[in-house]
């Protein structure tokens, strides 16, 4: 009964809170600019199948410079690469790949990291000792070593990349969440919930985590940017998703030796990665600024 009333109470206010926080974004031009950069790539990635693009993996005419005419009367806006594939199309389909995998990997890392953090912070004792120790061991690995071990041992598939990002990021997320929970667990509403006889599970998932969201949203934006870099970097190093699907990092690696006469082939994907990461970083910066004002 009480739960029902509560949920009826909170849902409209949650909605209006959401709109209020979107409205708050207007206070920070930096956040707006960052969000626009992200949306630019998200919209292109979603529209990719219906946009009038060449097949990203089809060999058309090799070594065409940007804005050169295609044999079939079309236009290669950004030119073609050494295998004759349309670069514009590859960049847009590459955006699809990187956005899907970066979001999935960050989300999984967050779920694991938040659960570890809330358990360590709220239950304390042995839970805290064991989880903190595992995190410390994982954090003592240089991240790239963790990636190389996991991917060479298990193979370069999307799932293993998600796994590797989770191993590398979850301990850091766990530390942040644990710190926030240690602060929140002494609040009155937690005592109220304990007195009501709520289970530890309920308190952790319903009372603690939602109230820790502020700093986590900023951190998530930063981590999305960093995961984007990671996925492109793995592609660059030859540890990324298997071919032939376009991958920004691999596009740079493949065409880097041709820089002396066809620089655009590597510059275009490099600019694409930088702009997307810049979007995430600026949004995180703007959100932090807004949250400091309150």
């Amino acid at each position, binding site marked *: 009964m009480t739960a029902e009333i509560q949920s009826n109470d909170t849902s409209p206010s949650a909605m209006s809170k959401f709109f209020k926080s979107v409205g708050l974004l207007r206070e920070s031009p*930096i956040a707006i600019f960052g969000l626009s950069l992200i949306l630019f790539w998200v919209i292109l990635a979603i529209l990719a199948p219906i946009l009038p693009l060449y097949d990203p993996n089809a060999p058309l005419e090799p070594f065409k410079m940007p804005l050169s005419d295609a044999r079939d009367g079309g236009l290669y806006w950004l030119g073609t690469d050494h295998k004759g594939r349309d670069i514009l199309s590859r960049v847009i389909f590459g955006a699809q790949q990187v956005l899907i995998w970066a979001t999935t990997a960050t989300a999984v890392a967050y779920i694991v990291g938040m659960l570890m953090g809330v358990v360590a912070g709220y239950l304390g004792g042995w839970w805290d000792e064991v989880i903190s120790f595992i995190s*410390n*061991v994982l954090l*003592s*690995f*240089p*991240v*790239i*070593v963790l990636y*190389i*071990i996991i991917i*060479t*041992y298990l193979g370069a598939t999307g799932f293993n990349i998600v796994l590797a990002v989770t191993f590398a990021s979850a301990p850091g997320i766990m530390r942040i969440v644990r710190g926030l929970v240690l602060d929140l667990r002494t609040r009155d509403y937690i005592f109220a919930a304990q007195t009501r006889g709520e289970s530890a599970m309920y308190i952790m998932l319903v009372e603690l985590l939602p109230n820790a969201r502020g700093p986590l949203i900023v951190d998530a934006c930063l981590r999305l*940017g960093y995961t984007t*870099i990671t996925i*492109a*970097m793995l592609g*660059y*190093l*030859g*540890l990324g998703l298997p071919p032939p699907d376009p991958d920004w*990092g691999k596009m*740079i*690696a493949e065409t*880097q030796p041709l*820089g*002396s006469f066809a*620089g655009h082939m*590597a*510059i275009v994907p*490099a*600019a694409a*990665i*930088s702009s997307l*990461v*810049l979007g*995430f*970083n*600026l949004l995180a*910066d703007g959100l932090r600024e807004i949250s400091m004002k309150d």
Partner: protein
Amino acid sequence: MLILAFRRFLSMALIMVIVSFTLFAIFESDKLSVAGKVLGPYSNTEQRELWLDQNGYNEPFLERYVTWVGNALTGDFGYSIQYKSPVADVLWPRLGNTAILAGLYMLFMIPLSLTLGVIAGMKEGSIQDRVVSVGSVLTTSVPEFASATFFSAIFVFWLGWLPGTSAMTSGFSWAEIFLPVFVLVMYGFGYTTRMTRASMAEVMTSHYIRTAVLKGIPYRRVIMKHALRNALIAPFTVIILQLNWLLSGVIVVEVFFAYKGFGKLLLDAALFGDIFVIEACTLVAVFVAVFSQFISDIGYTLLNPRIRFT
């Protein structure tokens, strides 16, 4: 102080034991696949069994682990399949090359980011603060392989000022090391700058700075004598901990510019399946990371005037 250092040292040793054991279990628990990697894909099971027997692989797992650790501690990391020589012979020169790269990076990155961070943090919200903050977000958004692409397009292919690769085939060359270091500094300085800025901004709002200003001490002196010491504690730990993720940048830069360093060795070994080189490189990398954490902890307590050991 000694007790603290000893406790930190113990936890460092414990982490190294766990990490090395995990690595050993991952790479060497499947004996036949080790033999397959060493003898190549065309060896038959009989040959592999023989090799395992000759190289002491039929001892109990724990005994093998202890021998392996003992060998590693005395500098014997086994034999590289790819380079056909002892791993140590390949490893140390490569590590030296990377130390040069990392050392030059630190040499330029530290003064640059501390100066920028202090200038920005002195006056929060001022124009110089805005410029430095936006600039550091901008540069940290361009990963090394992207900025290396941009800079070599400008300096190598367009202006023709610098060589595009840094293989150092005819000895050490400043022209060849410039771009790798430049790329690392461009990506790396932003983070330390932001840390320094935040730390400086926090110190500047503290009471003792206000007191110093109100006492009529010249502004320069307030900054140099009073603010800096406290403001630089946090960046110090950040700089040392950077070693941990500097390695990713180092690998990318070494691959991009074909620089013969530790990172490229590790990556090539991983792609080739050169198992003993992977083990050695991983151990070294984790040791550097854990040791830098140790130094950072000790340094923090030494620098912080609020912690005194008598």
